[in-house]
């Protein structure tokens, strides 16, 4: 997993609530057996007319050239719906390192963390402040300090992450390494609970 410490970047504002994983990556793209290449199908049906890559929908934010960056900012309840990790893979593969929302669905949040994409939960008010910025505005996210700032205004908010997950992300460790080292304890648990 890729590590992440600090990032300053422009952002892409997605002012839609309840973005479900079927929108992030439609089911027809789940037939792959590897984790690669999902980025080109991210938000596929919101991005293109009739599934045609030569016909981008002008009103969709990923197709608006003024917006770019490694941070996606979405309205509340982002990532609801299915458990498909393909949603996190497509966001990561597209080039996002951070997703900001006022509320994340549980499974998506775990999936993002397990793939080096940092979910940052902010207050509704702070989210509105971000949405009020222009296309050239940048955000700064500092994982060590657990802060997110709007650079132009200096507004800053602290976000929560448990210290275990924070350490994993700062160093690029994953849970499986940890669990593989726990085998003796797991075997002891099994013996005691048979």
């Amino acid at each position, binding site marked *: 997993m890729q590590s992440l410490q600090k990032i300053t970047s422009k952002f892409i504002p997605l*002012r*839609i*609530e*309840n973005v*479900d994983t*079927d*929108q992030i990556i*439609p*089911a*027809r793209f*789940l*037939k*792959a*057996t*590897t*984790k690669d290449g999902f980025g080109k199908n991210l938000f596929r*049906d919101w991005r293109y007319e*009739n*599934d045609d890559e030569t016909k981008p929908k002008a009103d969709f934010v990923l197709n608006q050239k003024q917006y770019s960056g490694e941070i996606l900012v979405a*309205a*509340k*309840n982002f990532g*609801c*719906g*299915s*458990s*498909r*990790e393909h949603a*996190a893979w497509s966001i990561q593969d597209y080039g996002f390192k951070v997703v900001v929302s006022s*509320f*994340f*669905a*549980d*499974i998506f949040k*775990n*999936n993002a963390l*397990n*793939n080096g994409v940092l979910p940052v939960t902010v207050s509704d008010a702070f989210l509105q402040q971000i949405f009020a910025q222009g296309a050239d505005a940048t955000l700064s996210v500092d994982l060590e300090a657990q802060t997110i700032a709007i650079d132009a205004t200096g507004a800053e908010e602290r976000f929560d992450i*448990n*210290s*275990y*997950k924070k350490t994993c992300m700062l160093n690029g460790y*994953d*849970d*499986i390494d*940890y*669990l*593989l080292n*726990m*085998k003796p*304890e*797991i075997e002891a*648990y*099994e013996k005691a*609970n048979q």
Partner: protein
Amino acid sequence: MGKTLFEKIWDKHVVKQIEDGPSVVYIDKHFIHEVTSPQAFSGIEKRGAQLFRPKQIVATADHNVPTMHQELPIKDALSKFQVDTLIENCKKHGVELYGLGHKYQGIVHVIGPELGITQPGMTIVCGDSHTSTHGAFGSIAFGIGTSEVEMVFASQCIMQSKPKVMRINIDGALKNGVVSKDIILYIIAQISASGATGYFVEYAGSAIRALSMEARMTICNMSIEMGARGGMIAPDQTTFDYIKGRLFAPQGAAWDQKLAAWKELYTDADAKFDVEINIKAEDIDPMITYGTNPGMGLSVRGTLPTIESFTDATEKQNYEKALAYMGLTAGQSLLGMPVQNVFIGSCTNSRIEDFRLVASIIKGKQKDPNIKTLIVPGSQEVAKQIKAEGLDKIFADAGVEIRQAGCSACLGMNEDKIPAGEYCISTSNRNFEGRQGAGARTLLASPLTAAAALLTGKITDIRDILN
């Protein structure tokens, strides 16, 4: 202080609590399917690791299997490759597979309970958000991502932060024509598609106790649609009677021992929940959704919210977006609106009782000539039972074809899709944009409401047929 049902099972399965971090939770049973497992198998192989407890894993192919001519090779090359990859992975790693052609094949959340694999007190995971279905047996069951599938492959454990607990009490008697699907659609409409995020939900109360196991599964199945990590119901005599005698149920002395332990699985009288919600069963009507998330539901006799009822600008914008996608108008009624498709199936409503319900309505009648149907049993066992009970004849006489087991048009990964712009009354669990096919307009409802539309060709209050 006493413990909740959730806490009793959770505490027993915590192998280790990481300081200011997640718990390492032991998993008793791990279900896998073709879509969310291949990257986990290849991940394990890349690490040079082995599956830690392959005997605790059960696999099936369900998401992208065809529901006609399953005896023939799968036509779609990508689907075929994914199903073949599952076969190969299971063989290589010693995992039991009930694949295409196997008599136990079916939707993973249908076969687990029907084979007696799902039992009270267990921890159960699957790379599928509807794993919460198994909570109907008084187990902790929840959906996981592929990285987590790999964790369970590697260690039979998963890292999870302990969720908060919510209890939803539904007391009283259901009105005629109202079934368990209506209960859960009503709850989600009340608390919204994110109303239980961060919580594990226990469903309780006299209306829940009165339900069959299959009806309870329908409720637990849709827990995720209000954001809950999972849903569960304390086991009781209904649960024990359901499990007894099933293929993988304990037998003889082992049964007596398990039963004694299962009888301890209930929330103590003095246990505390973070949130408690009370619902009167008699307030629930047959329900239907009108929007693009399962929280956008109302009584089949209701009217859509007005635009003015939304004060928040983003919420208003989202409502207008949903109306535009669905081709509906604020303030309108849905009753009598023509629909073109009926889908009966999915891990929510594809069990034998669902087919009995539908058959009871359509018996001796003809389907509306304009209605196209996708009628899909949840498993080979359900399909067999449909024939054994002669329900297949009732469907055939009504002009309705029954297909073969799989997830089908719930998510349209195979060829079972709803055409763009058309309405589908669906017994499945999600009405997201494009879920049943690009541009498809999904209206979630119970098998009874679906059966009513099958006969009339329009959105109908089932009580008008029953009375």
